[in-house]
């Protein structure tokens, strides 16, 4: 690693820290400074409804939000930042005594599992389809692949989810039963399986994860096909591809080791960026499939005004996105040294 790379990565890491700081600050001031902010509301509520004294209500709020209201705002802000650095977001309102970080740790793996599986599947298949449709531009199936991809990439993911539930879980297609029993389209795993590393549990996880995974798959695959097709088309006419053809290499060999590798380059970084993006978009999908992931938890926290949980999950989502962006940029700068000289990746 030379000095350019090190400098490049250092600026990126600075950007990551800055972004996380902006988001934490935003949340702090939303909670503390807004008129009728949650802490004031909570204190008012205790005073009016339960007849507590103002001091008592204040101290109760302080312990709940883990904020020392007697300090001035700046010191409170410093305290809050210190706690956030340790990923300590206090305890949940809804389930008193349970740490926010515990809830997040138990929910995040489920979201990562479904989003990750769906994304990897769509990436692998999309890239193959995209490369084929660019390479065989004149075939009869190319318009079909391109048409379906642009169609799928346009439709909002939650509408795809509704269609998937209908297609697999509801319509009987002339038979007596739907393809998948509808109860398998809800929840994370079936009743009566014990959690742990055993076959029924793993089978149940995949059966119940099918809905969300398919949703992420269908909502993402169009984008990969389109990106890969564009990228491959660009590489087809590059000098090295023409020379490879002139040398009489087998078309398959050219596609896989000459064009494919270079065409993959810009797309591989997009993969990491998408990962973070979909974690943020998992909210509605998890609601539709009643899938107990981080998105559904954020929704529950919001509808129940569970502010510590809300801010914790939102921060974790931001960190996930920021880290996956960072990963994308580092991978790209290692794969393609030109980018460091130009001083930044061109965003599409």
């Amino acid at each position, binding site marked *: 690693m030379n000095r350019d790379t090190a400098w490049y990565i250092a600026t990126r890491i600075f950007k990551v820290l800055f972004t996380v700081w902006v988001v934490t600050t935003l949340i702090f001031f939303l909670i503390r400074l807004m008129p009728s902010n949650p802490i004031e509301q909570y204190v008012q509520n205790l005073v009016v409804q339960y007849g507590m004294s103002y001091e008592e209500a204040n101290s109760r709020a302080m312990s709940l939000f883990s904020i020392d209201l007697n300090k001035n705002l700046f010191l409170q802000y410093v305290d809050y930042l210190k706690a956030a650095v340790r990923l300590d977001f206090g305890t949940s309102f809804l389930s008193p005594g349970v740490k926010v970080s515990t809830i997040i740790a138990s929910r995040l793996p489920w979201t990562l599992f479904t989003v990750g599986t769906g994304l990897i599947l769509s990436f692998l298949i999309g890239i193959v389809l995209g490369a084929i449709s660019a390479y065989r531009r004149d075939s009869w199936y190319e318009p079909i692949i391109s048409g379906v991809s642009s169609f799928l990439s346009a439709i909002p993911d*939650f509408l795809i989810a509704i269609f998937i539930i209908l297609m697999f879980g509801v319509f009987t297609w002339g038979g007596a039963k739907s393809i998948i029993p509808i109860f398998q389209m809800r929840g994370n795993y079936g009743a009566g399986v014990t959690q742990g590393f055993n076959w029924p549990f793993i089978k149940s996880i995949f059966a119940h994860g099918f809905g969300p995974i398919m949703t992420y798959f269908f909502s993402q695959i169009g984008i990969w096909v389109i990106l890969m097709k564009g990228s491959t088309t660009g590489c087809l006419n590059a000098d090295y591809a023409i020379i490879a053809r002139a040398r009489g290499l087998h078309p398959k060999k050219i596609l896989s080791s000459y064009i494919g590798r270079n065409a993959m380059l810009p797309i591989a970084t997009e993969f990491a960026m998408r990962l973070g993006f979909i974690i943020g978009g998992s909210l509605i999908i998890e609601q539709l499939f009643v899938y107990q992931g981080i998105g559904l938890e954020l929704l529950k926290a919001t509808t129940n005004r569970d*502010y510590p949980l809300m801010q914790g999950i939102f921060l974790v989502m931001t960190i996930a996105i920021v880290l996956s962006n960072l990963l994308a940029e580092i991978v790209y700068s290692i794969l393609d040294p030109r980018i460091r000289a130009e001083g930044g990746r061109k965003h599409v």
Partner: protein
Amino acid sequence: MSKTPTAAQLNLTTTTRLSRNLRHLRSAIFGDPIGSVGFFLLLAIILMSVFGPIWFPLDTISDPTKLLNPPSAEHFLGTDHLGRDIWAQIVSGGRELLLMAFLTASIAVVLGIFLGSFSALVGGKFDEMLLFFADVWLTIPRFPLLVVLSGFFTLDALALALVLAILSWAGLYRTVRAQVLSLRSRDFIEVAFMLDMPKLYIIFKEVLPNMMGFIVANFTLLMRAAIYAQVGLVFLGLLPLDQNWGVMINVAWNQGVIYNPDAIWFLLSPTIVICLLILSLVWISRSMEEFFNPGLRK
């Protein structure tokens, strides 16, 4: 070239340039079959939402004798859980959504164009700072932020449009900035700079007319994002709105319509209309991009 052009001369050149660009827009849409399908689809949806409610007024009272009926001659998409006609709800459900999306896209486009072209024309530290800030802004997860915000405020349609526009300025800012930077080196902009014209004048008279197709393409994409966000929030029950397609999906879902084959159109019809609307927007923007950005064509 010692004589500076008079205002009349300048106006003449810009109006011809604008009309040329409008002509380009037209051929961009109608020269491409997908673009024209998108255009007419959007037109049909707009006409339906504007004039439809006159012929198909909403049922205001419920009719307990025909709850969740299947499609029939009288109610050709069936009835909802209160016995009201679904077709009438579809017809009236688009107006609010379209208006909100249009408003959001307008505000976001204005923000993006102003910041983007200023940033590119001013340059220097201001440009660098704004670019960095836009980068940071882009990484904040937008939909979860909207969900969190709706926990703090009650967002009505207008507030939502404003918030959405502010949340989506950064993407357009970056692309406008890049466009203006590439335009900047062109002769006519150089001349405008040499003549020491005010920056606002340059933006409006020289830069904007040359980015029409680009702006329209982004406008439709912004509308799409606004529709996604609004329907999503409404579906989650986080927005207080009375009559639109997102609300219909929400109600149909919560009524468990999905298990009732007779009433499936209560859920399916708003879903399909939203898909059609979004597809029409995407198709229009794609035909624009292909026309104005020939590098994308094969």
